[in-house]
Each structure stands twice: as structure tokens, then as C-alpha cells.
């Protein structure tokens, strides 16, 4: 009885261990396939799935983000792929993220690789479709390589031909390589070029020294670089400009005056106008001269009369009642 119970106990441990290991394996595999996790489905549309299968991994920034759950052909060039994404990672996938089908390693399974988008876009939600792009397939690469190879072969043939011509001394390069005279001439030219280069270097050095002298304030260039002096020069130039404008105005007025004078001269010559009358009539001159003499006499007489008038007025100031009036006038002027 004891033995039987002990056997049963051992059997129980044996069976339970086996079942526990099976359960652990089941859970671990399920976790790796995101079967028990909190996941959401998003979609991507491709023209070519490149051998992708349901159950293949989905990677986001190198992390395992989920699985491919469904591959559905919508049209001949439109294949919709359902991606079951772990919700912890879903929040980091932006709406402008792009999905591409790539190979996991050199000979690995195909995977869907989601490249991160920009922060300015919001996170994708369950049911959204993200953008996708197809990588260049191996066939396309091989086709391009084949074309390149053909071109390279043609190029090689041409190069060979050119190399033969050069070797045989044909053409300019052939002559250069093969003809010793040309070689010597080229050498001499190169020597001359070297010499010229040395001289040019010297000239450049002198030029540099000259340019450096601009920094010295005791010469003209240095003075020009002085900002205070430059401002003064600017002001002077402005004044000169202003003066030249005014001179221009004066010149224009002078021109007008000269024109008028010319016109007067022309008129005088033609026997027209006041000048002509004044200059050409002798009676008028005599009359004017006579009138002037009369005026002189009259002015003299007026002076004498005014002196007499002054004397009369002085006498009047000292007479009553006018005397009182003048006193009042003096007082008023003093009070002010």
C-alpha cells in the first residue's frame, strides 16, 4: 500500500512536470507570437510582397513589434497586409511612418520593417493604413548590373583600342608618349611654366604686401579706411553736391538774365525798347541833364527851407501852451 502510494506520488510528479513544461512552452511561444498580448491591427498596401508570409515578424526601429496576420489581394497590383502590432509600440508609430518588406539577415525570413515618422504627426490608431514603399528587388539590381556589365565590356574594348594607338605612337597622346622631341619640348615648357609660376608667386607676394599696406593709417588707403575721416569726406561731398545744385540754379538764372540782356541788346539794335530810346535820342539826354540840374537846385532849396522850419519849431516848443504838451511827453517816456 505504502509502495503503491509512493509510486503514485512519483508518477504524479512526473506527469505534472511534463504538463508544466508543455504549458511553459506554449505560453513562451504564444508570447513570442504576440498571441496573448494587447495588440491592435494596422494595414499597409504593397504592390509586391516579395515572399512575405502570414506569421512573419514586424519590426519597428529594430524592435519586434508584432506579426503579419493576413495577406489579402485586393487587385492585381494592390496587396493589403494586416499587421498585428503590440499596443505598447503602437503609440510610437506615427501616421507618416513607412513600411517596407525586407529580409531578416542575408538568408533570413522576410519581415515588415516600419520606419519611424516625424513627431509632427500623431500616432496611428487601430485600423489605420500606413504608407509603404517597395525596395529595389534583387532581379532589378541584377538587370542593372547586367547592363552595367555590358557597358563596361564595350568600354574596355574602346580603352584597349586607345591603349594600342597610344603604344604605337598614334594621335596626340601617342605622340606625347612616344616622340622624344615632344617630350623634351614638354619638359622645357614645364620648366618655363615653373619659372613663370615662381615669378607669379613673387608678384602675388608683392601684391599681398601692397594690400597689407592699406592697413597703415599714414597713407592714403589707410586714411580712406579711417571711419571719422570717411564721414567727414562724405559730408564734404554732400556739401559739394548741394553747392553744385545751387550753383546750377544760379547758372540757370544767369543764363536767363543773359538771355534777357541779349534780347534787350537785340531790341536796342533793332531800334526798339527803352534803352534804344534813351541811348539814341540826344534831345532827351539834354532834357534829362537839364532836369537833373533843376532837381539839384530844388533839393538845395528844400534843405534850406527845412533848416528854417527846424528853427521855427524850436521856437514854438518854448511857447505856451505847446511847452506843456512837450513836458507831458517827456514824463510819459520816463515812466515807461
Amino acid at each position, binding site marked *: 500500500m505504502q509502495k503503491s502510494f509512493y509510486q503514485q506520488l512519483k508518477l504524479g510528479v512526473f506527469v505534472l512536470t511534463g504538463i508544466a513544461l508543455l504549458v511553459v512552452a506554449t505560453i513562451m*511561444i504564444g*508570447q*513570442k*507570437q504576440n498571441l496573448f498580448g494587447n495588440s491592435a491591427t494596422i494595414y499597409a498596401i504593397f504592390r509586391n510582397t516579395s515572399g512575405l508570409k502570414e506569421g512573419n515578424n514586424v519590426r519597428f526601429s529594430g524592435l519586434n513589434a508584432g506579426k503579419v496576420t493576413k495577406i489579402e489581394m485586393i487587385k492585381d497590383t494592390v496587396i493589403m497586409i494586416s499587421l498585428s502590432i503590440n499596443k505598447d509600440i503602437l503609440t510610437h508609430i506615427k501616421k507618416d511612418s513607412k513600411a517596407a518588406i525586407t529580409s531578416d539577415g542575408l538568408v533570413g525570413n522576410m519581415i515588415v520593417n516600419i520606419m519611424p515618422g516625424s513627431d509632427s504627426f500623431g500616432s496611428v490608431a487601430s485600423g489605420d493604413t500606413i504608407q509603404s514603399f517597395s525596395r529595389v528587388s534583387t532581379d532589378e539590381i541584377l538587370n542593372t548590373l547586367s547592363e552595367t556589365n555590358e557597358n563596361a565590356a564595350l568600354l574596355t574594348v574602346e580603352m584597349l583600342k586607345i591603349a594600342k594607338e597610344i603604344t604605337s605612337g598614334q594621335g596626340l597622346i601617342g605622340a606625347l608618349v612616344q616622340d622624344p622631341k615632344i617630350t623634351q619640348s614638354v619638359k622645357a615648357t614645364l620648366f618655363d611654366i615653373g619659372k613663370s609660376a615662381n615669378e607669379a608667386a613673387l608678384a602675388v607676394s608683392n601684391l599681398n604686401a601692397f594690400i597689407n599696406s592699406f592697413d597703415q593709417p599714414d597713407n592714403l588707403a589707410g586714411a580712406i579706411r579711417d571711419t571719422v575721416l570717411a564721414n567727414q569726406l562724405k559730408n564734404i561731398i554732400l556739401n559739394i553736391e548741394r553747392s553744385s545744385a545751387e550753383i546750377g540754379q544760379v547758372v540757370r538764372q544767369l543764363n536767363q538774365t543773359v538771355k534777357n540782356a541779349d534780347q534787350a541788346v537785340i531790341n536796342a539794335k533793332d531800334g526798339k525798347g527803352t534803352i534804344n530810346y534813351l541811348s539814341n535820342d540826344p534831345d532827351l539826354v539834354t532834357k534829362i541833364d537839364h532836369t537833373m540840374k533843376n532837381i539839384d537846385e530844388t533839393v538845395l532849396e528844400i534843405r534850406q527851407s527845412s533848416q528854417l522850419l527846424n528853427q521855427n519849431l524850436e521856437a514854438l516848443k518854448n511857447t505856451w501852451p505847446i511847452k506843456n504838451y512837450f513836458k507831458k511827453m517827456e514824463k510819459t517816456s520816463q515812466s515807461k
Partner: protein
Amino acid sequence: MNYDKRSLLSGIKAFIAETGDMAYFAGRFFREVFKRPFEFKEFLRQCYNIGNRSFLLVGITGFIIGLVFTLQSRPKMVELGADAWIPSMIALAIIREIGPLFTALISAGRIGSAIGAELGSMRVTEQIDAMEVSGTNPFKYLVVTRILASTLMIPVLVILSNFLALYGSFLVEYLKGEVSFRFYFDEVFRAVKYTDLIPSTIKTFFFGFAIGLVGCYNGYYCKHGTAGVGIAANTAVVKTSLMLFIIDFVVALITDILFLS
């Protein structure tokens, strides 16, 4: 020439007849298994014999298989620069094929021959006849319990053996490649899918059933006295091994059609 032809024909005929007889034997098992009374104690005893007592042999074998398999494949994988693939490759090979088949073959050698010899000796010593006379159903008591125990215990043995094999493989990787336990088993469970684990686990039930059925059949119908006991044990092992490969092939075919292709 005529003799050979006759012998070949009679051989084929005997094979077909035996297959039919075995099918009848299996049919009887399915009829008896659901009928009362259930021989529960005898069933548990057989479970202990088949499961616990085989565990040491199966466990050590599994551990060594994992160890050797990794040791053998590792240099070539490292040469190819694919040493990171060793855990997943070993895991898939062990869980899908090597673990179940090796465990079943070892069990066929140990359990199948033991059942064949035990029942064969009971038959030649007329113990089975005595049971029939005493009113006990020998088929139910001897055959049903053994086949049922074998069917249920072989999967448990395979699971334990698989883990020991993977542990053996990990030890090699740990010692030679300095791979951590977590990384190794992370890679293992990343590579293994339900489409690998479920068919291979279901397969082990068929393996267990075949081991029990062929062992019981050969023992139960043992002839030719005591010499027949040895023949029964030997035949049980040979036929079971052949049957295991046939079952393995059929299951692989079905799995390929349903899950892999």
C-alpha cells in the same frame, strides 16, 4: 523460383492478415477502453512502469542527443557565420523530429519489448487463459491499461526529453559560445511556433499508442512456448520501430500540407 514466389506471396498474405488482425485488436481496445469496470490501479501501475521507470534512460539519451547534435553542427555553423542560428536550428530539429522519434524508438526498445515479453510469458504460462476462466477480462486488465498508459506517458517522456536535449545543447553553447541561458531559450521560443509544437506533440500520442498496441499484440498472441516469448519481444521492437517511422512520415506529410506549405 516457384518456392520463392510462393514464399513471397504467403509473406504478403501473412502481412496483410496480421495488419487486419492488429486493426481488429486496436478496434477491440477502443471498444473496451470506455467500458466499465476501469482497471485504474493497474493503469497507474503501468503509467509508473512506462513513464517514471523509462525517464532516466530517455532523459539521459535526450540530454546527450542535444549535446552531441550541437557539438557536431556548431563548427560548420560558425564557419558559415550562422552561430546565432544554432539555438533556433537545434530547437526546431529537436522539437519537430529528433526528440519525439528518438524518445519513441528508445521507448519501443524498452517498453515495447517489456510488454511483449511480459504478455508473451503470461500467454505461454497460460496465465491469460486462467484469467479468462476465472471471469476476469484479461484484455481489459492487461492490454487496455498498457496501451492507454503507453499512449499517455510517451508524450510526457518526449516533452521532458526535449527540454533535457535543449538544455544539453545550451550547455555546449554556454561553454563554447558564451551564450546566456536567457538568450538561448529566447531564441528557441522565438523560432518555435505552434505549428511546430502541436503536430509534434500530437504525433507522440500516436507513437505511444503504436508502442503499446504492437507490444501487447505480439505478447497477447504469443505462440511456440517459451521461445515464442523472445520472438514476441523482438518482433514487438522491430515492428514498433517500423511503425514509428511510418507514423512519423504520415504526420510529417499531413503537417506539411496543413501548416507548412
